[in-house]
């Protein structure tokens, strides 16, 4: 287990390093932020002073070394646009994105698993077919368009829910969260549902496939032959078998939900990291772009690692193999 952990951690460091190089070169090689950040009327001296302040006069490799050196100490540079540390900017907005992502994940699980189980339990029924058709639609609908439609229906036409912003937040464990206020919830519901839709379709498909596959297994028939109730067979025997792959895949998908939050945040003006990155790309705010990408990639690597460990805890068969090796 330790060997496995160490190997995975080393892999992670290598990936991060490569990423930082690619991102840095790519991002710093294009455009000229000076043109954007300094007013065209500025004279030569002002320009030079700005270039110096931003460290843009150094050769590329030197800029990278400085960047790397600072990155290790948690200093990812200062945003050109905000003049605050890039890392701080992102960390500031991270709770909003995480809250949105987790709420979306929660919705997709809470809605997707029961629907998927029903569709797998009664695949030929009208409800079963309808659920499957819905999941195909969920896969095909572009997230941003669904977001627009949600706004159109629930915010504009029905006027039930607000369409933008995060609403009232409360401090919890030092973070600003909105799930403890009614207003926060009303703001969270639409974007979270929007972000959840795609994953929900995935959960439905996974659960349904798992359900159908497991229902044919001998252990189900044996459990029924023991005289267990249908409820116990489904919710204990089958569910435990289905949950292992579903949890694994969902865990891996958490990272992609965070990445896709970019779209939802833009539509619902949700003040998270995703909206920040889009603005930064448009403004060529390099330090923020680099910091965002590095942080997201790190989050990815951590999530994958945690899921791997979780998987081995969940499945007794894997656990045993790990112990033996």
């Amino acid at each position, binding site marked *: 287990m330790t060997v496995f952990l160490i190997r995975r951690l080393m892999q992670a460091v290598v990936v991060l390093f490569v990423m930082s190089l690619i991102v840095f070169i790519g*991002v710093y090689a294009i455009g000229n932020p000076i043109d954007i950040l300094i007013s065209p009327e500025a004279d030569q001296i002002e320009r030079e002073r700005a270039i110096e302040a931003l460290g843009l006069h150094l050769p590329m490799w030197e800029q990278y070394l400085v960047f790397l050196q600072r990155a290790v100490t948690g200093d990812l540079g200062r945003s050109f646009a905000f003049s605050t540390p890039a890392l701080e900017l992102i960390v500031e907005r991270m709770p909003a994105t995480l809250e949105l992502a987790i709420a979306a994940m929660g919705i997709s699980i809470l809605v997707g698993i029961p629907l998927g189980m029903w569709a797998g339990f009664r695949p030929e029924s009208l409800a079963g077919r309808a659920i499957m058709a819905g999941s195909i639609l969920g896969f095909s609908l572009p997230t941003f368009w669904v977001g627009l439609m949600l706004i159109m229906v629930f*915010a504009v036409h029905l006027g039930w829910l607000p369409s933008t912003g995060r609403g009232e937040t409360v401090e919890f464990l030092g973070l600003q969260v909105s799930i403890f206020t009614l207003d926060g919830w009303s703001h969270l519901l639409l974007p979270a549902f929007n972000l959840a839709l795609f994953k929900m379709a995935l959960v439905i498909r996974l659960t349904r496939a798992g359900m159908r596959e497991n229902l044919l297994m001998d252990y189900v028939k044996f459990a029924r032959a023991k005289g267990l109730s249908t409820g116990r067979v489904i919710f204990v025997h089958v569910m435990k078998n289905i949950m292992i792959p579903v949890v694994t895949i969902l865990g891996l998908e958490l990272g992609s939900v965070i990445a896709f939050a970019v779209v939802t945040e833009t539509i619902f003006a949700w003040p998270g990291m995703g909206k920040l990155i889009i603005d930064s790309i448009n403004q060529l705010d390099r330090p923020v772009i680099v910091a965002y*990408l590095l942080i997201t990639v790190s989050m990815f690597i951590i999530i994958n690692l945690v899921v791997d460990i979780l998987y081995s805890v969940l499945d007794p068969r894997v656990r045993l193999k790990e112990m033996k090796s």
Partner: protein
Amino acid sequence: MTVTTPDRIEPAAPAAEPAVVSPLRRFWIEFRENKVAVAGLAGCILIVTLAILAPLISPQDPYDLMQLDIMDGRLEPGAQGMAGQTYWLGTDDQGRDMLSGILYGIRISLAVGVASGVLAMMLGASMGLLAAYFGGRVDTLIMRIVDLQLSFPAILLALIMVAVLGQGIDKIIIALVAVQWAYYARTIRGTALVERRKEYIEAARCLALGDARVVFRHLLPNCLPPLIVVGTVQVAHAIALEATLSFLGIGLPITEPSLGLLIANGFEYMLSGKYWISFFPGLALLLTIVSINLVGDQLRDVLNPRLRK
């Protein structure tokens, strides 16, 4: 298209006649079994036709400013313009006919999607074939990259690429190719590994044919079916991804108004209830993606040898 009711062949029918059917015909017979997929195919054909014929059938050239009348701005669907013409799907803020805008938009979206799909397929297929044919270090290296890349969501990779490359139609295509090639590579490597062990490849190698010839003339054609399936699905993905990027304002430039840009354009008017500027391009996008996905799903079933009776 002949409209015949497909005779249900009973599974238990004794001694079925081994009818002589060309592979293409047989493919079609199996394909049309699923009515929804046929509808999807019809949708695809319709969309491609519309895209090709857009300049001929559009009521106006939406990007010829001379033809636009700013007084016709933001008209509702079905409204009459100043010049007496009817805007069936309404107009946008500049008085542009939405129907024409959508037809041109489909053209651009489809072109970007198909171009990136074809390029990604070429790159991915070459990489996958290389990995499968040479094995060993080459295989390990390529597949490592593929695995690594596939562990990141497409949107994140696209963001990285856009951040690195900047905007522009060529750059978006490059970004889409970079995002997608790995899917093709993995698919074709899997199939090619199976094919490689078959006798005809051994035979070709025994004849001392060049590696390139064996790979491209012998191996590749036999790996095509799964490649076609992945290709269909990936083109749909590419169109959706391009639309998303364009919607976010980091995709195509405004000089290339794809469906995503049209939708983004109407976003601000949506809150004031002028739904049509965003709604109809979105519907066109949805129709395109769903049609392609339906065809892809059925292709998967028909071309999958394991499901063959």
